[in-house]
C-alpha cells in the first residue's frame, strides 16, 4: 500500500501548487474524464469526506466492485486519502467468487458499479451512480481516449449521435485534454490461438462469446466448444451453460487443469480434455466442428468434435497502448506470458517524472489478485502454435493478424529471410499494422518470430504502439472545418459589392480577390481585355485593400528600414513614396512595395498581399532578436484601411469630381501622398502606379471603404469607369515590365537578376542580404537575368517553359539557358508579351531562343522587358 499512498499524496500535493491546471484524465476503452487539480483535490477529498460521513473509519475496508471507469480511481484515491483500505476486485468475478472474497476481507462498504456481481449478502452498498452525483466527479460516457502525446496531451473521442446520424447533432466530438497525471485502467485484450482454420467464421475469442451471451443476450451458436491455455475461458463455458447452450468440450492445451474454474465446468458435466489441441477446423464458411489432437504432437487427429462455435483463448495481454504511445516501457513477464508496463520506466511529463499510472489488468494484474486475495488461477501455458509441432501446411492456415491477413507461415518466412528486427519483420509481413496496432496480433506474432529466430521473446521486443487506439474518422478530426467555415475566407470591405457585380474570384492566400468582372455572357478573358482597355483609355478601379500595410515608428525607424530594404528609406522626405525591395539574409528577393514617409519618425510600408503577416513577422524577428535595443515599434494595420486604386488617364478627373482635395500634379506629384477628404470621406491618397497609368491609390478607414468605392463608381460613371481585377493588374504591370513577387521571383532570384540595381543602395554599409549578394555565386555574371521575350509567331509563350541551350547535361537532358516567368496576351498591344530570366539576357538583345514543349517548339526574341510606354510618360496622365 505504500506505493498507493505515495500516489495520493503526490496527486494532492502537486495539485495544491497549481490548482488551475488540468490534473488528471481517467481513461478506458470507452470512457474518458478530466479534472483540474483543484477539481481533482475536491473530488477526492469530497468523496473521502463522504465516505467518512457514511460512518466509515480509517482502517475500514471498502470493496470496489467497479469496472474500468473513472469511479474506480476516484474511489481508490478517496479511500486512501481517508485512511480507508480500498480493495479493488476484478469486475469479471462471479457472485460466488466475490462472495468468497468478501467473506475474507469483511468490507465495511461496497461501491457497486452497474451490472457487476456483488457478494451475497451484499452489506452496505454505495452505487457508483451516487458517487458520480457527488460534486467534482464527471463521468463522460461513450468516450475513448485514442492517444497520449507529449506533456500529458490526450486525444479522446466522444460518441454523440452515431446511433442517430440524421439528428442534426455532431456524430462525434474530439476532446483535447492536457492532463497532469493519467491513470490508465484500460484492461486487457484476449489473444487468439494459432491453430489451422482459426479464421473460419464461428471461431471467436472466448471473451467475445461471453460478451454476446452476457451483455447482449445473443447466442453466437448452440454448441460452443472452448479451446484454451488458461483458466479464464472456463468462464465462457459456464456462461454458455447458464444460458442453456451446449458445451461439448473444453480443449485445454495445459497438461492439467484442476483449478476452481475447470472443476466448476467439470461439475456441470462438461468434458475437459487437457494436453489437447485443435488440429483443424471443419467447415469453410461456418464452423461445423473440429478435429482434435495432442498439443505436443504434430496434429494427428484423435477424434472429431461437432460444434458451431469455437471459443478460443490464448491468454490475455494488458492494453498498454496509452502507456506506450509516449514512451512508457514494457517488461516481458515470462511466467504470465505478457508484456506489461514497467512501473520503473513510465512515460514522463514536462517535469521529468512519470505521468501515467497503469492500474488493474492494464498493469498486468489480470485478476487484481494481489489486493483481493482471490484464489489464484492456474498459470497460463504459452501456446504460440497449436499443436506444438504442427505441419508446415497447417501453419499456412494459422492466422496471427486477421486484419492484415498475416499467418504463422508469413512470420516464419520473415525470420528465415533474415528480418531479425521486429520492426523490419512488421513491415515485411504487415503484422500489426494499421488499425490492429498490435491489439490482436502482437504477442502471438512476436512469439512466432522469436521462435523462428531462436531467441527469447524479451530479446525480440515489441513493435511501436501508435495512436489512435482505434481509428478516428477524418470528420471527427476536422470538426467545424467544413462547409462555409472550411477555411477562414478573408473579405475586403468591398467584397459584397464585387460579388454582386459578378466578380470571378481568385484566391490570394485566404483572401478572395476579383480576378475580373465578366458582364453577362462575356468570357473571363474578354472581361480582362475590356478592363485593361478601359484603364489604358479612360479610368478603372482596383480593390487593393489586401496589400499589407505596416506602420514603422520610432527614433531608429529610418535606420531600421535602411536595413530591411535594399534601398535608402531614411532619406525619403515626409510626404513622399519610394518603391523598395526586401531580401532575405541569403540575398534573395522576398517582397516589394511602396514605402511612404508619414512623419519625421513614422513610415508606412506596403507589402504584397501574401507578404503582410510574413514581413511583419520578419520585422519583429529582427527587432526582438537582433536589434532589441533599437527604438522602433511596428504595427500591422493592413485591415484598418480599405485601399482603392483609381488608374487611367481620366483618374484625376474622377477625384476632382469627388472633390475635397487638390490632386493636381503640382500639389500631388508622382510618388507623393497627401491626406484630406474626398466626397467627405477621410482619405490618404498616394500617387503611385502599378499599371503605368496616372494612378491614385486611396486609403480610407475600412468602414468607409464601400461608401468611397461606390462614390467613385458614381463619379466616374460618365467617364466609363470600370472596376478591374487582378488579372488586368497583372497584365498591365507586365506590359510595363514591372516584376511580380512570385512570378519573376521564386526564392532563388536576387534583385540584381531583375536589373533592379537602381533600387539597391551602394552607399549603405549594410542591409539584410547585402553580404550574401556579394558572394561569388551571387555576383557572377553568369546568372540568369530579366529580359522581355517577343514571340515570333504571335502565339503566347507557355508559362514556365525553358529555353534550351546546346548539348546535354550529365543526365542526358538538354541544357537550358532561361525560362519564361510571366506571359500574357497584351490587349493593349494586341500581341503576346512575356518576361523571362535568361543567361546573360540583357547582353543578348535580338537573339532568338527556342522553348521546346511536348510536341511543339516556341521561339522568341530577347527584347527589352518594357513593352508599353518605355518613356514612362503615361504615369503623369
Amino acid at each position, binding site marked *: 500500500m505504500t506505493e498507493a499512498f505515495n500516489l495520493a499524496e503526490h496527486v494532492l500535493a502537486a495539485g495544491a501548487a497549481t490548482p488551475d491546471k488540468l490534473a488528471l484524465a481517467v481513461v478506458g476503452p470507452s470512457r474518458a474524464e478530466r479534472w483540474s487539480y483543484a477539481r481533482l483535490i475536491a473530488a477526492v477529498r469530497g468523496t473521502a469526506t463522504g465516505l467518512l460521513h457514511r460512518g466509515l473509519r480509517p482502517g475500514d475496508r471498502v470493496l470496489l466492485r467497479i469496472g474500468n471507469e473513472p469511479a474506480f480511481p476516484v474511489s481508490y484515491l478517496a479511500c486512501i486519502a481517508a485512511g480507508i483500505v480500498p480493495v479493488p476486485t476484478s469486475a469479471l468475478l462471479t457472485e460466488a467468487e466475490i462472495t468468497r472474497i468478501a467473506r475474507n476481507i469483511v468490507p465495511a462498504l461496497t461501491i457497486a458499479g452497474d451490472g457487476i456481481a456483488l457478494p451475497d449478502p451484499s452489506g452496505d452498498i454505495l452505487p457508483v451512480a451516487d458517487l458520480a452525483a457527488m460534486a467534482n466527479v464527471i463521468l463522460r460516457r461513450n468516450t475513448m481516449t485514442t492517444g497520449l502525446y507529449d506533456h500529458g496531451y490526450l486525444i479522446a473521442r466522444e460518441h454523440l449521435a452515431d446511433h442517430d446520424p440524421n439528428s442534426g447533432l455532431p456524430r462525434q466530438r474530439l476532446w483535447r485534454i492536457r492532463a497532469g497525471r493519467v491513470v490508465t485502467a484500460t484492461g486487457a485484450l484476449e489473444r487468439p490461438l494459432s491453430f489451422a482454420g482459426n479464421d473460419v467464421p464461428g471461431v471467436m475469442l472466448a471473451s467475445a462469446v461471453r460478451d454476446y451471451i452476457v451483455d447482449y443476450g445473443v447466442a453466437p451458436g448452440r454448441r460452443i466448444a472452448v479451446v484454451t491455455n488458461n483458466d479464464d475461458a472456463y468462464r465462457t463455458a459456464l456462461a454458455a451453460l447458464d444460458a442453456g447452450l451446449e458445451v461439448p468440450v473444453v480443449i485445454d492445451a495445459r497438461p492439467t487443469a484442476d483449478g476452481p474454474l475447470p472443476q466448476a465446468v467439470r461439475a456441470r458435466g462438461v468434458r475437459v480434455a487437457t494436453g489437447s489441441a485443435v488440429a483443424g477446423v471443419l467447415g469453410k464458411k461456418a464452423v461445423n466442428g473440429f478435429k482434435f489432437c495432442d498439443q505436443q504432437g504434430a496434429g494427428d487427429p484423435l477424434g472429431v468434435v461437432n460444434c458451431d462455435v469455437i471459443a478460443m483463448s490464448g491468454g490475455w495481454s494488458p492494453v498498454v497502448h496509452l502507456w506506450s504511445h509516449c514512451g512508457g516501457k514494457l517488461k516481458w513477464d515470462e511466467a504470465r506470458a505478457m508484456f506489461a508496463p514497467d512501473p520503473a520506466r513510465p512515460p514522463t511529463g514536462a517535469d521529468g517524472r512519470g505521468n501515467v499510472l497503469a492500474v488493474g489488468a492494464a498493469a498486468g494484474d489480470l485478476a487484481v489478485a494481489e489486493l483481493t486475495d482471490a484464489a489464484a488461477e492456474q498459470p497460463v501455458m504459452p501456446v504460440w502454435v497449436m499443436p506444438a509441432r504442427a505441419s508446415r501446411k497447417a501453419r499456412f492456415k494459422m492466422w496471427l493478424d486477421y486484419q492484415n491477413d498475416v499467418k504463422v507461415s508469413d512470420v516464419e518466412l520473415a525470420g528465415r529471410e533474415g528480418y531479425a528486427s521486429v520492426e523490419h519483420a512488421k513491415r515485411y509481413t504487415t503484422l500489426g499494422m494499421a488499425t490492429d496496432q498490435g491489439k490482436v496480433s502482437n504477442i502471438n506474432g512476436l512469439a512466432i518470430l522469436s521462435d523462428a529466430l531462436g531467441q527469447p521473446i524479451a530479446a525480440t521486443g515489441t513493435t511501436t504502439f501508435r495512436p489512435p487506439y482505434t481509428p478516428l474518422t477524418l470528420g471527427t478530426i476536422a470538426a467545424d472545418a467544413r462547409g462555409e467555415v472550411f477555411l*477562414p*475566407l478573408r*473579405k475586403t470591405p468591398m467584397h459584397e459589392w464585387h460579388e454582386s457585380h459578378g466578380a470571378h474570384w481568385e484566391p490570394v492566400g485566404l483572401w478572395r480577390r476579383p480576378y475580373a468582372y465578366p458582364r453577362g455572357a462575356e468570357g473571363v478573358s474578354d472581361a480582362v481585355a475590356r478592363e485593361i482597355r478601359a484603364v489604358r483609355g479612360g479610368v478603372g478601379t482596383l480593390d487593393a485593400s489586401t496589400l499589407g500595410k505596416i506602420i514603422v515608428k520610432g527614433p531608429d525607424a529610418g535606420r531600421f528600414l535602411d536595413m530591411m530594404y535594399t534601398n535608402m528609406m531614411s532619406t525619403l522626405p515626409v510626404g513622399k513614396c519610394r518603391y523598395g525591395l526586401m531580401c532575405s539574409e541569403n540575398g534573395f528577393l522576398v517582397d516589394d512595395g511602396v514605402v511612404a514617409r508619414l512623419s519625421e519618425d513614422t513610415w508606412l510600408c506596403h507589402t504584397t498581399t501574401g507578404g503582410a503577416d510574413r514581413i511583419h513577422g520578419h520585422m519583429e524577428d529582427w527587432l526582438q532578436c537582433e536589434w532589441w535595443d533599437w527604438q522602433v515599434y511596428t504595427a500591422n494595420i493592413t485591415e484598418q484601411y480599405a485601399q482603392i486604386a483609381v488608374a487611367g488617364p481620366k483618374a484625376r478627373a474622377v477625384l476632382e469630381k469627388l472633390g475635397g482635395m487638390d490632386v493636381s500634379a503640382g500639389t500631388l506629384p508622382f510618388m507623393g501622398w497627401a491626406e484630406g477628404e474626398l466626397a467627405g470621406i477621410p482619405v490618404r491618397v498616394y500617387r503611385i502606379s502599378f499599371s503605368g497609368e496616372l494612378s491614385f491609390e486611396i486609403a480610407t478607414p475600412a468602414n468607409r471603404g464601400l461608401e468611397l468605392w461606390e462614390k467613385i463608381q458614381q463619379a466616374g460613371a460618365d467617364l466609363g469607369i470600370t472596376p478591374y481585377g487582378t488579372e488586368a493588374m497583372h497584365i498591365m504591370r507586365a506590359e510595363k515590365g514591372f516584376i511580380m513577387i512570385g512570378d519573376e521571383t521564386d526564392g532563388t532570384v536576387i534583385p540584381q537578376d531583375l536589373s533592379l540595381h537602381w533600387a539597391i543602395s551602394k552607399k549603405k554599409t549594410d542591409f539584410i542580404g547585402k553580404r550574401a549578394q556579394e558572394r561569388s555565386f551571387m555576383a557572377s555574371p553568369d546568372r540568369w537575368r530579366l529580359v522581355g521575350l517577343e514571340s515570333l509567331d504571335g502565339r503566347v509563350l507557355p508559362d514556365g517553359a525553358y529555353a534550351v541551350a546546346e548539348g546535354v547535361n550529365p543526365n542526358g537532358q538538354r541544357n537550358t539557358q532561361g525560362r519564361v516567368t510571366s506571359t500574357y496576351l497584351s490587349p493593349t498591344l494586341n500581341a503576346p508579351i512575356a518576361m523571362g530570366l535568361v543567361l546573360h539576357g540583357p547582353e543578348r538583345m535580338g537573339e532568338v531562343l527556342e522553348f521546346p514543349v511536348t510536341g511543339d517548339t516556341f521561339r522568341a526574341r530577347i527584347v527589352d522587358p518594357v513593352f508599353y510606354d518605355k518613356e514612362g510618360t503615361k504615369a503623369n496622365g
Partner: protein
Amino acid sequence: MADMTPLASINQVSGLGMILIRADLTRAGDAIAGAAGLAIPRPNRFTSDGSRWLGWMSPDELLLVLPHGDVPGALSDLLDALAGEHALVQDVSDMRCVFDVTGRKPEHVLAKLCPVELGALPPDGLRRTRAAQIACGLWRHGDGWRIIAFRAVTDYLRGVLTAAAAPGTDLDPR
C-alpha cells in the same frame, strides 16, 4: 429532455473604437493611464470602467476599446501624454470585428473553438488565442464573453461561433 435551444446568442457589436498603444509600460504607464482614464492592466488582464476598456496585449502593447465617438479625443489625449516618449498610438477602430457571446452556455461555445481553460481565466483575464483557424482575443463581458478578431474574417468568426452554439451540442456529460 435536453434543452434544444442554442447554447448562446452570437451578437456582433458595432460602434466601438480601438486604439493600439505601444510604449514602454514601465516608463510611460502613468502617462497612458492618465490619458486613457484607466489603470494599466497587469499582464494578461484588462481594466475597465464599463465604458472604456484597456487590455494588456504584450509586454509593450495595450489596446484601448472605447465608444467610437471618443476616439479622436482619446487619440489626442494619448498623443499629448506621450509627447517626447518613444511610443506608437494608432487608431485601429476599423481593423477588427467584435462579437458578444451570451446566454445559456457561452463557455461551451468558446471551449469548442479556443484552446483555453476558460474556468481558469480570472474575471479580468484577457486571453489572446485562436478561434478555430483564426487569431482572436477574448474576455468576460457582462454575463457572457466578448471576442474580437480581424475584420476580414468577420463572417468566418460568426459562422464558427454560430455552429458551436448549435442546439443540442452542449458539452455536459451525457
